[in-house]
């Protein structure tokens, strides 16, 4: 076990006129090496949940346990977890402040004591991981990059401190499809090759369906589903739609076929799965 949110509630402006309960009695366990997608519509408490995960917020009720230890009772554990969890908010490029890409990326690793050649190597590797050429980008101003390039530099700056867990809030928003795919394959590599734990929040159901191994669905501050993508997109479609979420177009189309009596066997999450399923059915016929 890695992270355990035990019966956690969080209320903004507690005991004030504008008191808002953002999370209600959440119980969530996240294990090492998981790839989790968190979905839910705007205002359902996703961002609050992310901020609790790495101790940026302290729960109003309940405990955040890391390996069984309450992080808010143990300063050292709290420091450790912040270093170990790379948290990327939406539009991370808004936090840029350095004059060159390489200085921007160096900020994190410098803070944990890297210098000289080792620091330079970290910058090189991080840029490579996000698909940007070190020599072409290192001296450019991060403020004069295109939107997609900025996003990738921001991700590189998180990768540069080599966190064990990556928490990514809408990482691909407004990236073009190919940069998006590139970034997703980087994220997949981090999960498969480097055994990192990935927690991704996104409104993009195609991404969630294709990548993650477990989906947590939130509504009004509560976890209402927690299951594999297959199960969620097969058995809980109506529930998803009733809370304003949608299916990936391909999943939706195959589900429509099933509705009119075609023997589509299970939830189809990718184009490749749909192709194989249809070819199989054509052959049978």
């Amino acid at each position, binding site marked *: 076990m890695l992270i355990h949110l035990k019966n956690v509630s969080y209320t903004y402006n507690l005991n004030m006129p504008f008191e808002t309960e953002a999370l209600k009695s959440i119980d969530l366990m996240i294990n090492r090496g998981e790839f989790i997608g968190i979905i839910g519509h705007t205002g359902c408490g996703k961002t609050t949940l992310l901020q609790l995960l790495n101790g940026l917020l302290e729960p109003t009720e309940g405990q955040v346990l890391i390996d069984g230890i309450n992080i808010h009772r143990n300063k050292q554990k709290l420091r450790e977890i912040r270093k170990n969890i790379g948290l990327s908010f939406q539009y991370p490029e808004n936090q840029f402040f350095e004059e060159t890409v390489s200085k921007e990326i160096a900020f994190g690793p410098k803070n944990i004591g890297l210098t000289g050649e080792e620091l330079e190597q970290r910058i090189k590797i991080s840029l490579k991981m996000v698909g940007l050429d070190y020599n072409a980008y290192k001296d450019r101003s991060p403020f004069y990059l295109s939107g997609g390039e900025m996003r990738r530099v921001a991700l590189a700056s998180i990768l540069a401190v080599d966190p064990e867990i990556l928490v990514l809030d809408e990482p691909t928003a407004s*990236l073009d499809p190919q940069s998006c795919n590139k970034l997703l394959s980087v994220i997949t590599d981090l999960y498969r090759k480097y055994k990192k734990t990935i927690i991704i929040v996104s409104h993009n159901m195609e991404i969630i369906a294709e990548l993650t191994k477990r989906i947590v669905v939130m509504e009004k501050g509560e976890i209402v589903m927690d299951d594999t993508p297959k199960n969620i997109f097969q058995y809980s479609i109506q529930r998803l739609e009733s809370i304003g979420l949608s299916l990936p177009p391909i999943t939706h*189309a195959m589900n429509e076929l099933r509705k009119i009596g075609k023997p589509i066997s299970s939830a189809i999450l990718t184009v490749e799965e749909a192709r194989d399923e249809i070819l199989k059915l054509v052959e049978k016929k």
Partner: protein
Amino acid sequence: MIRFENVTHFYSNNQEHKVASLSKINLDIKKGDFIAVIGANGSGKSTLARHINGLLLPTEGDVFVENLNTKELDKIWDIRKKIGMVFQNPDNQLVATTIEDDVAFGLENIGIREEEMKQRVDWALKIVGLSGLRNSEPHLLSGGQKQRVIIAGALAMRTSYLILDEPTSMLDPKGRKEILKIIKKLNKEQNITVVYITQFMSEAAQFKNIIVLDKGKVVLAGSPKEIFSQADFLLSLSLEIPQITRLARELAKNGLNVPSNIINEEEMIKYLCSYI
């Protein structure tokens, strides 16, 4: 009508580093057009959008909005009255403490009388379906509702063109649907010309025409069916085709007689029903 005549635009952060983000663009956007603009990051989409209302001026060439040149400084407010802009992040565009004040903001600026202002705000809020929330505070709204407030603000100005630069990229699926529904309605019922920048191919597929930008040039223009039948070319531009079209291509490759330019679900289901 909006006309780009040989428009080139250079960004420069210093003397040596000049980047042409638009390069000899010639483009006519006609009244009532319903156009999606797609292109890789850095292809010039946002730069193009910002030229339409004179937020950016061409380094070379001219942009005309109904025969007004955006370079004529004394005409710029006439131009901006005609053109409503909607950007990615609605929080950057909301200015007032209530929704109706926000919608009225532009009208106050141009000195519209109170009686007319009320009428226009009522009308605009009704069209975007937010009449019931007129006294709410903007920060209490969902992302989709916020974008609708901004669209209402543009409508109240009697704008004839709506330029939307990835307006749904921060929205949840429900918000995305809301925005597309509203702009389709505006185009159809109010004859408002829509130019819609997006990274979602599934959204672009719902427009009448698509313009594809690459390295500051228009490299392809046509109906969604025409555009998405050129999958290999799009891939070479860092773009993609919608999931449904990808499935059609995969099936065609495997010997099924499915046209490879299917772009919507109903059509796909119709074809599949004849097979399985």
